[in-house]
């Protein structure tokens, strides 16, 4: 670069070659990003899956590179691992549904009813929690749900019975819903904003009740947005292990926490288990693609 514009030289002949053969130019431009993708993402995943076929030394816990299907056999035949998988999928589904139920009216209000200023304020408010660290948000829920925390303080003022939700799956569901909510609101908002106002007017002109318009026009058009948001809420819940350890109870062992408690001692088993959310997510993505989720990402 310091030598200035050279008339001849390796760089110059390279650029001539690229000009003469466009496919070579395209290849040259694509290799660096694709190469990085293959090395960083694909290779890591492949290494993970390969590890799943190995075992560990019983004493030193070091990985022994002997091939076998033992980990996958255990995975399928241990009742507890099935329970953990089902529990994780159920909680992820509950969180996704709750987020959707809350997000649709909220996003509809933002996109259709709120005046521009309020719309901006609401949009900022819905993504504001993302500016705070994940851990801070989870710990703040611990403060709210503590036996002597904000929730019970408020209930006492209202003369309502005290609750003990902290360290339970209910707490987990609440916290996950709160944490992943912004990821649902934004795609739903994007979907609803695109609905042409004339559709709603036409529906009203034809004598449809507001509820009918919502059911027959707005909701179907929001589905791609909900599907896109659900990919985030579902997959993020599927892999999380921190919230279960901080606010979860004694029956809150999820896929993420099982992998976490095994990866130090039995890395191959943890690797094998990590194939489970991959398979679930792959199936989920196929279904969501059918629903048009990728149009709203």
């Amino acid at each position, binding site marked *: 670069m310091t030598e200035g514009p050279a008339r001849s030289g390796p760089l110059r002949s390279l650029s001539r070659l690229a000009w003469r053969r466009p496919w070579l130019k395209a290849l040259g431009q694509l290799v660096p990003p694709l190469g990085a993708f293959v090395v960083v993402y694909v290779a890591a995943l492949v290494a993970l899956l390969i590890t799943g076929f190995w075992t560990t030394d*019983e004493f030193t*816990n070091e990985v022994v590179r002997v091939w076998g299907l033992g980990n996958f056999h255990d995975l399928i035949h241990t009742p*507890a691992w099935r329970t953990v998988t089902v529990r994780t999928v159920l909680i992820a589904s509950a969180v996704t549904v709750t987020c959707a139920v809350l997000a649709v009216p909220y996003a509809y209000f933002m996109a259709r009813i709120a005046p521009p200023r309020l719309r901006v304020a609401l949009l900022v408010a819905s993504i504001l929690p993302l500016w705070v660290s994940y851990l801070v948000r989870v710990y703040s829920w611990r403060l709210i749900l503590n036996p002597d925390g904000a929730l019970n303080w408020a209930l006492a003022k209202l003369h309502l019975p005290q609750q*003990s939700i902290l360290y339970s799956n209910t707490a987990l569901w609440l916290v996950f819903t709160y944490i992943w909510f912004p990821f649902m609101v934004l795609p739903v908002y994007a979907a609803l904003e695109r609905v042409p106002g004339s559709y709603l007017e036409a529906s009203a002109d034809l004598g449809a009740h507001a509820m009918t318009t919502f059911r027959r026009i707005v909701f179907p058009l929001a589905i791609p947005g909900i599907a896109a948001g659900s990919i985030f809420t579902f997959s993020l819940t599927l892999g999380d292990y921190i919230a279960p350890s*901080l606010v979860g109870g004694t029956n809150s062992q999820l896929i993420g926490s099982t992998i976490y*408690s095994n*990866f*130090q001692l039995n890395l191959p088993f943890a690797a094998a288990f990590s194939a489970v959310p991959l398979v679930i997510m792959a199936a989920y993505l196929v279904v969501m693609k059918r629903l048009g989720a990728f149009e709203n990402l």
Partner: protein
Amino acid sequence: MRKRIRGRHLVLVALAALVGALVVPSIGVSKSTGLPTSIGKGEGALTLVAWQGYTEAAWVKPFEKQTGCKVSAKYAASSDEMVSLMRTGGGGQYDMVSASGDASLRLIYGGDLAPANVKLVPAWHNFFAAFKNPATNTVKGVHYGISLQFGPNLLLYNTKKEKKPTSWSVIYDAKNKGKITIPNNPIQIADAALYLSKTQPSLGITDPYELTQTQFDAAIKLLKAQHPLVKKYWGTASDQTDLFKNGASTLGASWPYMLSQLLTAKAPVAGVIPKEGATGWLDTWMLSSKAKHPNCAYKWWNYVSSPKVQALQATTYGETPVNSKACPLMDKLSKGSCAVYKANAPDAYYRSLKYWKTPLTDCGNGKKDCVPYTKWVTAWTSQVLG
């Protein structure tokens, strides 16, 4: 052309600097028999994997000032995490680890540790006999580290809401449903086995870490019955202190560190060793075979073995020092603490606790029918936690 040459020079200089940086730290420790014979100049840094409470500013700050070795510590929540941290990135990321007995042998046989030359740590000669060559850190006469402190795992209770418990039975009692906190740690199976060794002598449990399949199954059965009674399986020390502070839990299996934290916070909490006895730990500062700062590591060994620092850590954390000269200094720091932690004659006290060690298939009596630790982990996550 001149530019090019200068560029090449720069590369050479950079390479020389890199090689220098790699070579210089090892100069101080001259290696002949694999053991260093003198402690050289400090490398300016020391990286530690420690139990929470082992690298408090009260003794780390003076060490940094004295030696110029800047300490950066990472807390590990379990022995398993310690083993895995010492191996991350092929080892060498951390210089030392405060390993308990259930991690130390795994590290020694895994080839992760460098032997220690005790001649370079004069305070070692003042250690009580039991801690000079304990089986947890000395194999075939080779020292893999310097003993630090030891202590029991306690039964913690809220003094306002609970009567003083005398037996571990309270944490297995259906009456206490929803009040109990238990470490989320497979080694907890040994606590159940210790309790069974006293309450069901017919099982014939002599060592809670060497369990035959029948004995192991009985311990797992007890822990599964305990599961619905548990409020929370705690992960980190601060999890449990929170639970006791906010009243969510009033009974729990715990460490002295949490007790001293809670007492500092003026929480109505006390700890006991129940009549069945207790499991415990002996911790050792161990040196990685790939440590980048070996001179600072030797300086750290000398520092934490000195009576003054031994006494300071013992009274702060609530454990027993291994240096026989620490007792009078403990009483100076906190009156009567030497007797409380039995630092005046620890040999007999030491023998009364059942120390964390790695469960092996080898039962120690020639038979090879005991349940190894990997099975403990599987049983803990798949059967107890479920």
